[in-house]
């Protein structure tokens, strides 16, 4: 962090980036808006908003089945965006990229369409204590339906996954391992490659929750050898759309999930046959505008460079960890080493409920999140009902963290009376 040009981290020119985000020019409660809730959803650069606008002003039409000019344009851009997503995560083929609603639906798709066919009574599914509810509940439902067992890899005192349990819990009985690459609470980066390797060693498939990794660092599904990988457009400068990556052979072997238009080849009164990949898993009119606008979001991220995005967030996290530890009594959950975490910091203030913390932050124009962040088992592990969470993205500057720390001190003061 250079003192002479404090608005720069190693990674990005934040001042220039902020110009592209109209929403960040606002004031809230008379204070400049400081948006620290990007782990929930990110703001959008003008280029993405423009792409949406352009779609509705110029070529809004149905994809795939229209012969007219508007529909051809929409189809080309919608399928073009799919190929851009493919390249962004280095998938082998665009057929491995399925548009869904969000990460949650992506994971549920695997649970329903792969899980119900391949998980049987007595099988084991292994997940981790770091997971978001979307990577727990679908497996609970599946395990219950099939009479399978669900096991959790534990977290150690530094907020890291217990490496030895990856070996002991993932066994010959394991048919599926569901693990996150990065926690949305502790920020913990998991040894995802080791997890995938272990899953494959016992013949299991691995579902990777990449909701907090694809937006924040380079992710290469081939080098990871991931079987399935899920993420959300709205967490990476894009619109409300989700992505499921799946290895082609796995997707081919799966039965469809939702039935209806577009996912069929032929429908007869007594049976139907299915469309080719990836459309077999895209039933009904897709979110066309949303798919198309992903293209602009990825262009933006590519222009920044995902290595730089990661470096920037690492530096912000290091800066914040450092400053926040100085505020008396504040407890940071998860690793204290910025190299082992993403730009997400959840913390607890003694005697003050996170809702009250967040509310006081709000009056300073700072958006932070209070609650269990859809990770109740992890909060249970920490003995906390809820935490306050600040999360960073490409448009956040160290000065905003200064303000966060200042406000933390103010919270303590108000509650001391």
């Amino acid at each position, binding site marked *: 962090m250079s003192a002479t040009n404090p608005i720069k981290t190693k990674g990005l020119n934040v001042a220039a980036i902020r110009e592209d985000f109209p929403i960040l020019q606002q004031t809230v409660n008379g204070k400049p808006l400081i948006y620290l809730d990007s782990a929930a959803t990110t703001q959008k650069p003008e280029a993405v908003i423009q792409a949406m606008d352009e779609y509705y002003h110029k070529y809004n039409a149905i994809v795939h089945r229209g012969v007219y000019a508007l529909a051809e344009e929409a189809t080309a851009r919608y399928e073009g965006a799919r190929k851009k997503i493919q390249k962004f995560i280095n998938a082998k083929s665009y057929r491995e990229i399925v548009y869904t609603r969000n990460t949650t639906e992506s994971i549920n798709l695997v649970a329903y369409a792969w899980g119900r066919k391949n998980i049987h009574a007595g099988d084991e599914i292994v997940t981790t204590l770091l997971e978001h509810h979307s990577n727990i509940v679908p497996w609970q439902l599946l395990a219950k339906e099939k009479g399978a067992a669900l096991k959790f890899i534990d977290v150690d005192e530094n907020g890291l996954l217990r490496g030895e349990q990856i070996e002991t819990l993932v066994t010959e009985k394991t048919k599926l391992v569901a693990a996150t690459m990065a926690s949305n609470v502790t920020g913990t980066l998991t040894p995802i490659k080791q997890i995938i390797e272990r899953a494959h060693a016992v013949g299991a498939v691995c579902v990777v929750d990449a909701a907090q990794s694809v937006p924040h660092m380079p992710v290469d599904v081939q080098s990871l050898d991931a079987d399935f990988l899920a993420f959300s457009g709205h967490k990476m400068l894009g619109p409300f759309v989700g992505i499921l990556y799946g290895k082609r052979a796995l997707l081919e072997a799966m039965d469809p999930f939702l039935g209806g238009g577009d996912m069929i080849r032929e429908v007869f009164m007594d049976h139907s046959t299915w469309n080719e990949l990836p459309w077999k898993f895209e039933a009904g009119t897709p979110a066309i505008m949303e798919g198309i606008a992903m293209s602009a979001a990825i262009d933006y991220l590519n222009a920044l460079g995902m290595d730089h995005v990661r470096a920037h967030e690492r530096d912000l996290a290091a800066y914040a960890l450092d400053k926040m530890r100085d505020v008396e009594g504040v407890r940071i959950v998860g690793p204290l080493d910025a190299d082992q975490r993403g730009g997400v910091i959840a913390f607890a203030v003694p005697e*003050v*409920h*996170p*809702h*009250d913390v967040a*509310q*006081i932050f709000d*009056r300073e124009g700072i958006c932070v999140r*209070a*609650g*269990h962040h859809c990770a*109740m088992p992890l*909060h249970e592990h920490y003995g906390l*009902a*809820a935490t306050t969470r600040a999360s960073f993205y490409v448009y956040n500057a160290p000065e905003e963290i200064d303000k966060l720390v200042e406000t933390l001190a103010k919270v303590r003061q*108000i*509650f001391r*009376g």
Partner: protein
Amino acid sequence: MDDLYRELILDHYQHPHHHGEIPDADISYEDSNPLCGDKIRIDIKLKNNIVEDVKFNGKGCAVSQASASMLMDELIGKSLDDIKKLDKQFILDMLGIPLGPTRIKCALLPLKVIKAGVYGIQTWPDEEDDA
């Protein structure tokens, strides 16, 4: 002093009235706010259908805890029919602070628990507005 966290609220939060349990309660009910997981349990002791004693327990934010504490004071001496009539506005007036929609849910949680315990009404007290 801060508007939202004005003395009265913080005082009730830090020194809640009627906090605890009633072992031989006539009515006991617990519920949580699904948005944040905060839980409140309320025990009521009746005499001739009038609230003789009431206690609450649970964890939560300053708003929900203060709301519970202040509500306990109000309940003593009321009949179950009186309680049924308590509404959202009653709680907001009681607290007397400006609240956004999310925090209103915190403020209403104690009333919701009471109504569910007394009448099996499982919905938010403001449901009537919408149904």
